[in-house]
């Protein structure tokens, strides 16, 4: 715990303005990520996972209502940088991203090799030859035959395009890669192969990952830590070992129970209802309406309790918690 984290996100908020009001896509989230670790952000669609990734990379749309908080990368507060400095010093230099549906994110009129080489030319000031040579190394790294450098994206299969997108994120040798649903559009065996590639890269280069996904089973292939998001908030952060055996938050428990398994007698369960609108989220706990363990306390918003070092945003853990933040919010009796 004493080791300096690579990334520390504190109180990060990203709201969007719309005609009908503000959408609280990312609502004051905290988490930390150490070097050479992978954190998985789990959650249903529309819970703000991708918005959080974009907030970290500052890839924002025009209708931002509020963008605040603190993002510390390697001890540097990157929120203080202006857009140009962020572009030249952080994005793709220290943090890169494999976007959602990366297979369709490639430019159809550029050769795969040129696209992969481009970040190296822009951010590392390499000449085209150097960058292409480096792209070739990256291709070998992710398991794409090097003669594919000269191919256009439409000449590649989905799995190969995904690998090319990963190569593009890797070429600048970033400390952190944000992977947004990297395998959800791919076939099972291709998925497994890509996960193998990501693991190998992590072991060999020491990079860290933020993996955003709703596929719990596949996420376990990479996770050191798991952060569960619900309705714009992080409701639990836990080590992978304890999360996959004993999740804490009722929502995490329900999510785990909904995973169909190949073996064993347990029938998967579903979560009734659907997440609240982020336009006017309920005042209390946001999961309360769907929660089987709801009690009176849940009408007030729970603080984040620290249980055995793991943050959980649920009143159930009030008694066992060693700390809570924000402390004494809403005049809560216990936390004072």
């Amino acid at each position, binding site marked *: 715990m004493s080791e300096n984290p690579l990334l520390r996100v504190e109180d990060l908020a990203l709201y969007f303005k719309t005609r009908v009001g503000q959408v609280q896509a990312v609502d004051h989230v905290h988490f930390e990520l150490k070097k050479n670790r*992978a954190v998985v952000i789990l959650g*249903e*669609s529309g819970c703000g996972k991708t918005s959080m990734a974009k907030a970290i990379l500052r890839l924002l749309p025009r209708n931002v209502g509020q963008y605040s908080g603190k993002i510390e990368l390697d001890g540097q507060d990157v929120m203080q940088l202006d857009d140009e400095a962020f572009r030249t010093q952080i994005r793709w230099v220290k943090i890169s991203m494999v976007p959602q549906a990366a297979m369709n994110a490639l430019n159809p009129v550029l050769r795969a090799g040129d696209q992969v080489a481009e970040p190296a030319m822009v951010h590392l000031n390499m000449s085209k030859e150097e960058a292409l040579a480096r792209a070739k190394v990256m291709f070998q790294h992710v*398991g794409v035959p090097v003669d594919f450098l000269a191919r256009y994206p439409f000449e590649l*299969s*989905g*799995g*190969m395009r995904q690998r090319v997108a990963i190569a593009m994120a890797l070429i600048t040798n970033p400390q952190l890669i944000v992977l947004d649903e990297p395998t959800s559009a791919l*076939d*099972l*065996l*291709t*998925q*497994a*192969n890509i*996960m*193998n590639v990501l*693991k*190998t890269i992590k072991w060999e280069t020491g990079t860290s990952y933020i993996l955003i996904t*709703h*596929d*719990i*089973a*596949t*996420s*376990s*292939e*990479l*996770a*050191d830590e798991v952060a569960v998001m619900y309705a714009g908030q992080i409701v639990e952060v836990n*080590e*992978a*070992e304890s*999360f*996959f*055996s004993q999740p804490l938050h009722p929502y995490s428990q*329900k*999510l*785990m129970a*909904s*995973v*169909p*398994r*190949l*073996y064993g007698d347990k*029938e*998967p*369960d*579903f*979560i*009734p209802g*659907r997440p609240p609108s982020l336009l006017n989220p309920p005042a209390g706990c946001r999961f309360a309406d769907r929660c089987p363990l709801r009690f009176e306390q849940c009408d007030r918003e729970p603080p984040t309790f620290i249980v055995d070092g793991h943050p959980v945003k649920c009143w159930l853990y009030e008694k066992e918690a060693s700390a809570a933040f924000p402390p004494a919010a809403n005049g809560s009796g216990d936390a004072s």
Partner: protein
Amino acid sequence: MSTDLKNTPTPSRTDEDILLSVEDLHVWFELKKWGFSHVGWVRAVDKVNFQLKRGEAIAIVGESGCGKSSLMKTLLLLNRPHKGRVIFEGRDISNLKGRALKQFRAQVGFVQQDPYGALPPFMPVHRILDEPLVINGIKNKKEREERIRNAMQEVALTPVDDFLNKYPHMLSGGQQQRVVIARAMILEPKLLVADEPVSMLDASVRVEILRLLRKLQEEHNLSVMYITHDLSTVRYFSERIFVMYAGKLVEQTHIEELLDNPLHPYTNALLTGTSVPDAANAKHIKHVPPGEPPSLVNPPPGCRFHPRCEHVIAGKCDVEEPPDLEPLPGHLVNCWLYADGQTRYPGLEARG
């Protein structure tokens, strides 16, 4: 498309219990150059045989491009078979036209993969469910109204009045899929074909939709074909499972048998590739075959899986097509490994 079908639709003698029977089905698509000169075939479905009983649920599992959708579309007569026969209720349907075709289609319900794409955005739920009834000549407005309400009750789109006038974009993914299922069920079909019905939905809703489909199957004694790439959902749903690879059925058996004793190397790879949430997964590399499924224009000679197979028998698998073997009763496999009477996959015990 040219077909070398000689037979006329004569009722062949079949067991009363069998609803659908597919015999030696080939679905090939012609590749043309400049729009007319023949350059080859895409062999989407090759030599497929199976039977589906009344009230039975089967699953077809395979990766994209393995021909499962072509097979499904042929059963819905959206494409015609190149060769072979599809027999529905004792009648060869592969050449149906006009009114007979319409009657056949009314007996087969179809649940599409992407509910939002499958629903017309400009029609309210009521109209979406009304269409199949109008098209199939139910003139009595009161009767139509009643059937729409019944169908919506059945898929739990209740209270019905809240949903009747909603447009698809006002519904959640799960609700949209319920509308699609209601539309498929409204003509009281005998067979329901569900093409990846839950792959576009959130994990928390998937199970709900699968349970709904299973409930409908049991209550109406429906035959269901469940097409999926996700092995882990199959056993909550169907009794028999067919594994497809590159246009061929490589293994067919009961689901429990398949999980306990998978025979085909491809099935084994699929089972290995399916993740179960476990933190230990992150610590080791998964042992899955490299590469990707072959092109169906020029499939590899012999067994189509041999370039990726770790048990390939040189001189055999890459030369001669494997036969359909039945090493255990009711467990069919298309693989040379079992030609000498073996009944277990080599190394299965070792892998645990």
